[in-house]
């Protein structure tokens, strides 16, 4: 069975995605045949082109890298040997664990919600 994207004809807003259409499609909607395969999660609907397009990749920021580049620590960091820097960098990543990477827009400091 083919998959269909049902969208508002005038705006392109996606209304429904599936293999079974309404018996009588409302007059303001258009059904687009997408073929046999459901669009993957790596794609998302674009209202302007009335098509599925690549979903923008999520940007993650490394808190370890940010910590190292923190201007407050610059002079201290400069006094460390390469070996000491490597040990500290590795251990910091281990301690941060699942909080090592943050979303672009979240703060360096881990907030009370764990972001």
């Amino acid at each position: 069975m083919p998959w269909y994207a049902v969208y508002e004809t005038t705006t392109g807003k996606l209304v429904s995605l599936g293999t079974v259409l309404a018996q009588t499609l409302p007059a303001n909607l258009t059904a687009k045949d997408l073929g046999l395969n459901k669009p993957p999660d790596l794609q998302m609907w674009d209202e302007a082109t009335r098509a599925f397009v690549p979903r923008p990749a999520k940007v993650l920021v490394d808190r370890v890298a940010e910590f190292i580049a923190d201007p407050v620590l610059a002079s201290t960091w400069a006094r460390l040997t390469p070996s000491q820097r490597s040990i500290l960098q590795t251990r910091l990543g281990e301690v941060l664990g699942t909080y090592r990477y943050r979303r672009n827009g979240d703060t360096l400091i881990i907030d009370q919600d764990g972001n």
Partner: protein
Amino acid sequence: MGTKLLSASRRFEAAAASSGSSGGIDVTSGAIAHNKGATYTTLIASTAFDAEAVRLVVMIGTGTADALVDLAVGAALSEQIIVNNALCSRGTQGPVMATLLFPVRIPAGSRLSARSQCTTGARVTSIWAQLISAGSLGPHATERIETLGAATADSGGTSIDPGGTANTKGAWVELSASTSFDYQGFALGIGSQNNGAPGTFAWLVDVGIGGAGSEQVVIPNLILRDRGGISGSHEWFDCPIPGGSRVAGRAQCNGTDATDRLFDIALYGAG
């Protein structure tokens, strides 16, 4: 005034509780990601009474992950699955207890067991199961549970995209083109799509039936909340769905990030 006497209309048995850990029974997922373990782990060797429902609580061990759990009855090597692919997730904030209620008959003396698959291999899933006898309240026992929307390829469910406009319902996404039988009601499992750095978002979720473009909402505005792992599996809805129905879900979100606004759902129809 006298005290109202409450009659005990139901019996309850914790079919999977570990007094040694004050938790559930540990079930290790298959060694390879997205593959069920070869053997079932016994939750209880012999149930104490005829049960008409089982409440399942699933928690994943350390680290971000999604998991699917099968619940089965029967002797070792002869297990019959009664619940297929119960969905649960864990995020950065710690385990999220996915709680699902299945009104399915389990005779006294049954062996109850479970197996799982996870987004990484050999992950420990803690399972707590509670058997419930017949009583005057709650769903009536059914003969079978049908799973809609589970995705074994990524140990998740069907992805719901609320769309790029905050606080506005996105598109319906089909969970099933046609239910196999009449449902007395259903439970909903929620997944985080193995998102290791999610936003702190909130969602309102609709469940609907009907063809694409003419869906009718049967359950409106279920609340979900993300604190490092989406919480909000919904235990049971006494909401009949006719056999042959197309079932779909949609949502709105207070955030618009193209990845973090997404979540998975799976629906478990009982009839």
